[in-house]
């Protein structure tokens, strides 16, 4: 599949449709995990910069938590830790308290930092704050 076509999956109406039924980051992630086309991002570190660029665009107003969630999930699949960290940091800066995008970003941040929270765990605001501070240092912010 051409890269552009693959990246378009992250904004595909059907891909995002089911994720809209999610009330939590855990459910959203579970839905993405079951969508076979998204598995094509597995190991595609070469696509991570493009995903990151698109994520930055989607974090502008108006934001859509399901689209942001899809991009964070794809970033995690690529395994590109630098872009994962940047994507998670960007999302946390804008949507730290959000139960969908904020929680997904916090889980990605935890993964990048070598912590492995339970997949369904709700990360408390204190834990998210702590993750964000460490992550910002990782991505070069003071």
């Amino acid at each position, binding site marked *: 599949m051409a890269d552009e076509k693959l990246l378009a999956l992250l904004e595909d*109406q*059907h891909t995002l*449709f*089911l*994720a*809209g*039924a*999610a*009330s*939590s*980051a*855990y*459910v959203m992630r*579970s*839905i993405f995990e079951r969508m076979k086309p998204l598995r094509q991002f597995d190991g595609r570190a070469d696509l991570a910069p493009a995903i990151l660029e698109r994520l930055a665009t989607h974090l502008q*107003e*108006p*934001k*859509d*938590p*399901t689209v942001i969630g899809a991009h964070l999930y794809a970033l995690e699949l690529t395994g590109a830790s630098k872009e994962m960290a940047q994507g998670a940091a960007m999302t946390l800066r804008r*949507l730290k*308290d*959000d*139960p*969908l995008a904020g*929680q997904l970003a916090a889980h990605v941040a935890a993964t990048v930092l070598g912590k492995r929270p339970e*997949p*369904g*765990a*709700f990360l408390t*605001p204190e834990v998210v704050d702590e993750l964000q501070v460490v992550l910002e240092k990782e991505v070069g912010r003071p």
Partner: protein
Amino acid sequence: MTHRVLVTSAGVTINHSHEDAIHGELTPAQIASTQANALAQYPGIQPVEYIRLNHASETLLPTRKYNCWAFTFNPRQCWISSGPDVQNILDAHGTQVFLPNVRVGDVICYRSASSVITHTGRVWSLNASNQPALIQSKWGSWGEYRHVPLAPSDVYGTNVTYWRVTPIWGKGDAWVKDHAGDDRLVEPPGIDLYLSPDLWCNNSGGTFHENPVRAQPNQLWVRVHNADTLAVAGATVRVYWSDPTGGMPHTDWHAIGTTGVSVPATTLGGPPNTVVAGPIPWTPGVSEPQHCCLFAIVDTGDDPFAAATLDPIVWPWDVARDNNIIWKNMWIVPMSSGPSETPTADGAGQGGAGKPVSLDFVAKNVMGFAAAVEVRVRMRQIGAKEILGLGLDPAIAGQAEAVAPRLPFRRSKVRVQVRPEGEFWARRGGGALTGKGLVLTMPKAPPGEGGRLRLEVTPIPGAKPGEVYRIDLRQKVAGHPTGGGVYVIVIRG
């Protein structure tokens, strides 16, 4: 955006947000496509219709304003953040219930294979085996639907449990009692939902119920409770009348009047505060029947999406489900103990010698589909405690106490003949009411159709002044209790 503090009785704060404010609401095109996709992908799910108090109807379409957990625990007011928040609510306010003891209004909780909470909703209906038939729930940013329990199992899993959950604190909870045993939850147990003690007529400012008097000014009163830590401020109490039936569609509720009410907050875990609202004046005219049903709604707001509204109406016009709505279908029938004179139903005039009092009850299919209608008629003598529990004059209770039977079972001194009228009845049990009662059925009444029951009531020799008899008419449609009425026969000297 109002962001109130929701807290459990254990003092744990429930995390919540307003996703529409953070991300922007879905566009009309997104709403349309999401709804179309949902209905196509999950055939059989039914979009929920919300009928405002002005009778305007709207479908509860996809929105980011609230999610499943907020529908369940803080109706339609916000987006509750996570499964662990739900777990905190269940820990402090929930009791797990098991089939077949699940009741309408209980919470269904979906979990993943690894026991993570994924979704919640409310039991909307049960089948004949007391198994949940339909659930009402909000699916993430999709719409609100009624569906079979496992309809969304591919998204939320098949691991379901049921819980009876008391309201969390900080959401507001104006409350009126459906009947004396109302436990404040959705669809309280017991089917006397037409006997609210919190709605009465009393033209002297008293707190017991008297029959409204036709063509004269009457005074109606409503007792409003507040069991929450937030005050009820400036709510509107709306009172209606309708024909006396076992269930009446909202289009046949006729407005009587309104009054304002405010009820102070209670302390966390403290007893509810109570305020009596009224009087609401009412002069029944020629269009009202001799005996009416009365309804009251504590209107705290009927916009399902107004996040700033405390305790909005969740199920408008639904007496059983919504704890802001009550119904009174009770009529007091004084009768002479003497064989030579018989008062009419309003107790005012004197009928001919030996003539029975004729009382009416209209059974009606209030469902939107053809269904079986069943009316159970029973009569029994009642004592002082029950009379007071019905919210009647303490003087009636006092007289009943004085003539209370020594034996628990005494043959009734009132004869009741039940005469069904209309083409849909298939009667069983005979026409004379016995201690076992009567069950009258319509095997399949069309929507909005029904039939009249005429009760002819006559005291027989031996009836003592002061005795009080209660005739209950309880209606079920498609097996579900929809209401009923009570005639209270008071034997006079």
